[in-house]
């Protein structure tokens, strides 16, 4: 199982904040996982396809080629606007 998390505008657009999924065997990095989720429908395709979307694995910002493993927490979110 992998814990998926979506924040802020992305959470509202997708209508989901937290979700658990079983990782298909052929999905081994963030790029592939994002692509797999984008196949769900046009909303997912567009929202996760935005180049400004950040991804964190286990609460650390990563690049799309970062490996993803069973038990990980993966989060997608828009550019941060705190401070």
């Amino acid at each position: 199982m992998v814990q998926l998390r979506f924040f802020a505008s992305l959470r509202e657009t997708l209508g989901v904040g937290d979700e658990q999924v079983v990782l298909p065997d052929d999905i081994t990095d963030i790029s592939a996982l994002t692509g797999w989720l984008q196949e769900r429908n046009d909303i997912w395709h567009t929202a996760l396809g935005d180049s400004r979307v950040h991804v964190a694995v286990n609460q650390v910002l990563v690049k799309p080629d970062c490996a993803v493993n069973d038990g990980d927490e993966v989060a997608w979110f828009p550019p941060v606007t705190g401070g």
Partner: protein
Amino acid sequence: MIRVQTEDFDPGAELEQLRRNNGGKAGAVVSFMGLVRDLNEGDTIRQMTLEHYPGMTEKALGIIETTARERWKLTDVIIIHRIGPLAPDDRIVFVAAASPHRKQAFHACEYMIDTLKTDAPFWKKEATASGNRWVSTPPVIG
């Protein structure tokens, strides 16, 4: 010292605690206090709500503190950020750096707030007369 909290904070009490713990070591304390403005992109702001990523937020702020302490000679560091609903003039964030030397305190404080604004997972949603909207880009750097 890092805190993420819904309740307000008291910058004076934080600075006083830092001074009491100083032991004569730091001659310079530079702090940044962020307040909610009543205007953004031409619209009047009635309220805003700060969302964050619990767990990752604290981790990101911890990295910022550690990096600042590695780069500059600091005797104390404070980072406090609020979450939840806020109104104009409310305090949002407080960052302070204490150092024997003032240039180091300035550099460290500015580094910490700059990096917080790009790396720490907080998001602002503004309530205006025409509805709610997520702040989509970082504030203008003047």
